[in-house]
């Protein structure tokens, strides 16, 4: 698989079809994977693909990275879940389909609990998104790399995130409030969630607007709640559950819970799931005569 990837990458660079291949490589000590930007055909050997390739590299296609844009047309190594965010970026006019070559990787899941990784993929070391993945065979790609994966996700979403959502749904408002306040209180306002999110591409985030000051910058409960709720609302109907925000959070705020809860709400209300079709706009940014209004109470 890696050989095919390298070969395709080399061809693209040699033919000049792309100027940079955004992919995964090893760190110096070969313990972790890290994003690499290959601009020379002779460097394609640095490209790797394995279950430790957790990052959603589509982040680097956004306008947050003018230096990368300046390199020229990119090809991107993307798992199905990463392609979902690319689809949203295209549907939101952040990217044109023809401006990126997608090297879609067949995927059997990724590893979050790296300390438990012994070279084989077991369900207990995979994140919730992999348990429910219906895009292990990339759904939008220019070149698909790897063999077809046979995997049928469960009808009812499974895994820790969804179990916890169902548990919280059964609780009272005040219990849920306490749950979230406890978690948000830990927020240190490092904005890793925002910076790692491919869909947080605003040129000036509301957290940095101070006329008026919409969100207090202090890491006190008021400021933390405002920030985390605001971000969750902005991702409603757009979040593709790549899970990067929660993975990046240094204080382990369970951001997947809030984002997936909202994704379920949107699915119920609008029948929309983000990231499957780059021609479909997220429901919160379009007006439709058929929109139900039963959420207005």
């Amino acid at each position, binding site marked *: 698989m890696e050989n095919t990837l390298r070969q395709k990458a080399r061809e693209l660079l040699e033919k000049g079809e792309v100027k940079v291949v955004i992919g995964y490589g090893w760190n110096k000590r070969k313990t972790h994977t890290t994003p690499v930007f290959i601009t020379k055909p002779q460097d394609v050997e640095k490209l790797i693909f394995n279950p430790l390739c957790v990052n959603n590299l589509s982040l680097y296609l956004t306008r947050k990275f003018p230096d990368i844009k300046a390199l020229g047309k990119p090809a991107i190594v993307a798992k199905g879940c990463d392609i979902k965010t690319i689809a949203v970026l295209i549907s939101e006019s952040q990217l044109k389909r023809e401006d990126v070559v997608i090297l879609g990787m067949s995927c059997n899941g990724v590893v979050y609990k790296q300390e438990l990784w012994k070279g084989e993929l077991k369900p207990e070391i995979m994140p919730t998104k992999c348990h429910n993945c219906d895009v292990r065979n990339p759904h939008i790609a220019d070149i698909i790399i790897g063999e077809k994966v046979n995997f049928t996700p469960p009808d009812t979403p499974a895994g820790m995130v969804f179990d916890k959502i169902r548990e919280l749904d059964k609780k009272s408002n005040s219990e849920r409030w306490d749950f979230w306040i406890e978690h948000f209180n830990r927020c240190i306002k490092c904005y890793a969630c925002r*910076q790692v999110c491919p869909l947080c591409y605003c040129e000036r985030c509301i957290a940095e607007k101070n006329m008026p000051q919409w969100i207090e910058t202090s890491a006190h409960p008021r400021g933390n709640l405002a920030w985390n709720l605001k971000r969750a609302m902005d991702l409603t109907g757009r979040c593709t559950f790549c899970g990067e925000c929660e993975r990046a959070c240094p204080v382990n705020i369970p951001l997947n819970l809030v984002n997936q809860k909202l994704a379920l709400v949107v699915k119920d209300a609008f029948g929309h799931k983000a990231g499957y079709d780059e021609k479909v706009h997220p429901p919160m940014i379009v007006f439709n005569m058929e929109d139900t209004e039963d959420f207005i109470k």
Partner: protein
Amino acid sequence: MTTKFLKKENLGKLIDTLIGEGSIFVAPRMGARQVVYAPVSKFEEIVFDYIIPINSFKEFLFPQTETVAAFSIHKEGVDLRGVEIEPKETVIFGSRPCDAASVASLRAVFNWDFKDEFYNRREDKAVVMTVACTKADDSCFCTTVNLTPDSQKGSDILLQETSGGDYAVEAITEKGKGFMDRFNNFFEPLPTAYSPLPTVDIKPIAGVDVQKVKEWLKDTKHYENPLWQELARKCIGCGACTFACPTCHCFDIVDEGSAFEGERIKNWDACQFEFFTLHTSGHNPRDTQYKRWRNRFMCKFNFYPNKFSSRGCVGCGRCIRVCPVRLDITEVMEEISSLR
């Protein structure tokens, strides 16, 4: 100074006594599925099997959010009142030698010329009880920056774990000695036989020459080297590294409140944020991410050592652990060391 012995059960009694006296006892404990420095209320909350907490303990000397003044605005003018702090004694147990070494760096920046009494009063009331490291992970690199896993620097008291789970304890500073004298019923004489656990052996990263890195950075010509852009390309510009870093000290000052009353607050800030250096005019001296990242690296290995004669980096490895894209500061040191 003399070495004493702290039995585990006496540690529990020490905690109870301190908390009874109104002190704060900070120690490694679980917080949201990871080990963090946080106040504990009893012995049982402490995690003993840990490498290094994910946060540094700087938040107990330099809180993330601290009110420095309060004001109320009315027709006749403004009432303004500076905040007076009277910190409680804060015992930081289970600090690591790298973290302890960072205290001198914070002290330097908060005291050159103008003195920040918010920091000083907190540091005065802090007792740093460091436990020498018996384990390390692949992000630890203290020996690469000339520290050791059993370094005394910055600690008031240095503890060494024994095979029985007790500690051999040495007072390093007068403050530490005073603390041990105060609780001499818990700090017992050293038994004739005890077996200290061996300190972990961390090999310095072979390809890194810190002195060379410093010299290279000092040359202003190298500021424009294309290497910077290449090395920092993957940086996403979050503040995780700076907030986790024990020596990063940058902050913002903001006003919060209603139209009639409010507070002036000092908040942690990060040189990695785009708006950190943005002028009102729209000009930004560090307008792209690699410039911001270059500033952080320069600060650690050039500005800090030159300006404050203290360490900008203690090798705790937190910036590597928390980085969502695994931008590894030691790899950059290696790259620069390998330049001719």
